[in-house]
């Protein structure tokens, strides 16, 4: 059994908790003495972790890259190499034809974290060449 410190992903309070893990499965959440939560958790903090155990209750986890070769095609599982090439070709073509500002990108205010968002806005600004970067703060 091991315990890992995480910050709850369900609101802006920033409560710290420990995920208790056995055989790569989360089995419990324990409150921790974080600066803002002072050892307290709410309903979601205590019971919001079992989707990590692949419960498949509402909708499945995405486990492999997928592409739609044409608008009419079904989603098709492909390798990372092929998915990255497909997306790269399409983005480069749109950038060439319409300019970088034809591409809109978003950040994620949820699980990914600050570093992922930093890299995303760098990707939009330095690689695509646009400031079309926004996120769901407004919802």
């Amino acid at each position: 059994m091991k315990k890992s410190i995480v910050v709850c992903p369900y609101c802006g309070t920033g409560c710290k908790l420990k995920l208790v893990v056995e055989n790569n499965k989360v089995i419990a959440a324990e409150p921790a003495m974080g600066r803002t939560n002072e050892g307290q958790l709410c309903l979601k903090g205590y019971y919001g972790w079992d989707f990590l155990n692949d419960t498949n209750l509402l909708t499945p986890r995405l486990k492999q890259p997928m592409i739609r070769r044409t608008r009419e095609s079904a989603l098709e599982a492909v390798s990372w190499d092929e998915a990255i090439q497909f997306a790269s070709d399409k983005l480069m073509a749109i950038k060439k034809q319409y300019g970088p500002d034809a591409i809109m990108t978003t950040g994620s205010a949820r699980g990914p974290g600050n570093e992922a968002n930093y890299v995303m806005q760098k990707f939009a600004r330095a690689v695509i060449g646009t400031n079309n970067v926004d996120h769901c703060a407004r919802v």
Partner: protein
Amino acid sequence: MSNAITEIQQAKCLLIFGYNAADSHPVVARHILKARANGAKIIVCDPRKIESARIADQWLPLNNGSNMALVNAIANVIIEEDLYDKAFVQNNTEGFDAFREIASHYTPESVEQVTGLKAADIRLAARTYAAASEAMILWGMGVTQYGQAVDVVRGLAGLALLTGNFGRPGVGCGPVRGQNNVQGTCDMGMLPHQFPGYQSVADDVIRDKFEKAWGVTLSGTPGYRLTEVGHKADEGICKAFYIFGEDPAQTEADLAAMRATMRKMELVIVQDIFMTQTAEFADVIFPATSWGEHEGVYSSADRGFQRFYKAVNPSGDVKPDWEIFSLLATRMGYPMSYSNTEEIWDELRALAPLYAGVTYEKMADLKSVQWPCPTEDHPGTSYLFEGNKFSTPSGKGIFIGAEWRPPLEQPDSDYPLVLSTVREVGHYSCRSMTGNCSALQTLADEPGYVQMHPDDAKALGIDDQQLVWVSSRRGKVISRANYNDRVNKGVVYMTYQWWIGACNELTIEHVDPISSTPEFKYCAVKVEHIDDQAWAENYVQTEYSSLKARLKSHVANA
């Protein structure tokens, strides 16, 4: 937030405005309870009798959409009854005269009809707030999700300036951020006009710094906002949409319009952890690791950088988000490689002076560092504006007043009720995470509820817990009536995470002119009784099962 969440306990007065802590931030609600136990006066301005209203000294059940009128009336009392801090206003602020002029039109007596409040109650609240040695304002989406939102935020900040409630512990303004890392996405420059650290893309010196660090020429033209994408697609300007860790097909206003926007795109890339309704529109899906499967830093609502660690190994062929962007950047001709999140963090802090002193070491385990933190020996900043120095060019706090304007879509004979979208404690955002947790799913499931005053429901022949149709000019959904005497007559309330009872099919894409946030809190709807309840129950289950089956099949058949 200008102050730390923990400083709520030090306040002597809390003015809680359009903010339901018990449902949206239960642990902040505990801080409010502790403040109460410490003797703080509590004033709640909310149309519903929310939990905080039950323990408040004063609950002001204002009419939906009258925020600006009430804020102006409170300012009016504080100024005209001479309750404001003249020395503070004189020494630390600008724009008082113009602010006073607008507030002078809003005596409490003159706003009784618009707000639905008694003048004497507004006067009492204003006096309580002004008299406290430490007064803090907390607000939420009951302020920001209106067509007039930024004006109200400025008005509330004006109340704090009037009374000198900045630059000390236990005072200030707290917009309590909803999503766990919405503060962080702002901090990281996921904004069309700012680089990380709130640095303007239009500033040549700043752009030069980023150009040197990244080795490319950068655009100095601000980009467009998420809520503008629909119009940009209609105009043929926006052709591709790269959606990272969000579900606009569930969370944006007026979902039919959002779906039409996505269909117009030549390319939709979705990077997520779940097969969402947004992912259905994707031409490319990049599967990412989840919270619990990767590490990094989040920002809490009170500017606190906090590290979270990896707990379990992911089971699929998934990658951390930053690695996916790096692969794509490299393939597009811009080599990008990081070996871990700390390397990314160190690049960030070298470019953002506000965060320069925040090392991974200083955030280890349970530690937390609040920005600004300019140097490594700096401990971080619990409250902003110490010494009454504000982050404006002049260093002064600026009063900005505004006249009240009503919400856009008023109820009429066709759509006689107002719909306001709200939160509930057991589910989060688009529900892809909490809906996959067994305890949380057991507590609440489709189609969700429409909270109604019992008198409104009875007038329509609707019993408690019956299924009903709720419709607006934009859509129609099924929901379950919840007799609720905490809500005001004439207004119904729905939470936004349900797929079958999706209230955003109904909401309107009328946005605040400055923030571009939609008016989720106000649109006209009608609620209709359904005669055949057995049919309706079956309809909900059939629709829900077929939607879940469709999403599963995309993954299973891929």
